């Protein structure tokens, strides 16, 4: 079982594995892999704690009810799976500032936290605006040959590449 403890697998092995996993999700659950709707549902559940059941009246939550569903459990599973993988390889480490970030912008947790918060908020708006993320559109939608998803993933990468190059000041 040494392969389970290896730190990195070939990206092709991982990609093929995710492709095979998508067969299983379509067959056994009739669902494409996706991650971002779960955040809407959770956000709705948190809002309900403060504002009560009238949150369910919001038009967006009529479409995506604030409750635990298959995809929500999938996202919980991603957390557990990544934890197991990192633990098995000895790669688990509580870390505020990723190395790549620290090399360019220093290792102050506060700066990284604020930037990550801004990025996360923007991404959260964008994922719901586009109706999916790098999993739902980027992998599951493109493998179904959905026109919307091919267009979405191209826009994800255009936006991401330009932004990252601006931040790291490496625009050609």
């Amino acid at each position, binding site marked *: 079982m040494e392969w389970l403890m290896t730190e990195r697998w070939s990206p092709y092995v991982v*990609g093929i594995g995710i492709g095979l996993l998508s067969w299983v999700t379509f067959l056994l659950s009739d669902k494409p892999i996706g*991650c971002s709707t779960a955040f809407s549902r959770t956000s709705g559940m948190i809002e309900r704690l403060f504002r009560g059941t009238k949150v369910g009246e919001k038009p967006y939550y009529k479409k995506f009810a604030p409750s635990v569903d298959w995809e929500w459990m999938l996202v919980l599973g991603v957390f*557990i799976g*990544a934890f197991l993988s990192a633990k098995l390889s000895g790669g688990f480490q509580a870390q505020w500032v990723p190395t790549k970030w620290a090399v360019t912008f220093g290792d102050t947790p506060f700066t990284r936290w604020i930037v990550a918060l801004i990025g*996360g908020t923007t991404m*959260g708006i964008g*994922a719901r*605006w586009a109706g999916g993320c790098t999993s739902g559109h980027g992998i599951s939608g493109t493998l179904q040959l959905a026109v919307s998803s091919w267009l979405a993933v191209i826009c994800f990468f255009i936006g991401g590449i330009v932004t*990252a190059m601006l931040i790291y000041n490496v625009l050609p």
Partner: protein
Amino acid sequence: MLKTLHEKQGMQLLFGLLMGIVFGFLLQKGGATQYGVIIGQLLLTDFTVVKIMLSAVVVGKIGVYFFRGLGVAQLHPKPGSIGSTVIGGLIFGVGFGILGYCPGTMIGAVGQGSLDALFGGVVGMLIGAGIFSEVYPKLERSILNKGYFGEITWPQLLKKNHWAVIIPVAIGIAALLFVIDRFAS
């Protein structure tokens, strides 16, 4: 038989969890939960993420369309429009570039101990999703349905048999991966 399985809610929640564990395990083993790997992809210096995504798409589409042909799987293509897909996609991309994780890999990063992904990424995404639910009625009336084209797939748009699309796209992706492996890494 599969249809009755799809309706067993408790069982489906368990399946979701198990499939998620496999997904998260794979993402972490592939390095896709590392900030450096994702930013490396966006700076075009590390092609790990594209290799994972494209090989998943090739394997995934062959199986999913094959099982659909046997009548045991159904497609669920998402609807799209210029106002939602393009504008939302670009906003997502900007957030993706600032954060350095995407939603799934961000959760995986939390699992490996990345606190920026938890307190920045996850908290931010919940705030972002909350903001969207607030402005959704307005956006829906104004921009989201601009240039609506629906739940269409490439074979439907091109009026071709799906294998006439799947096979050339698979060859194209294989050629692209070969070029990336040869010249970009």
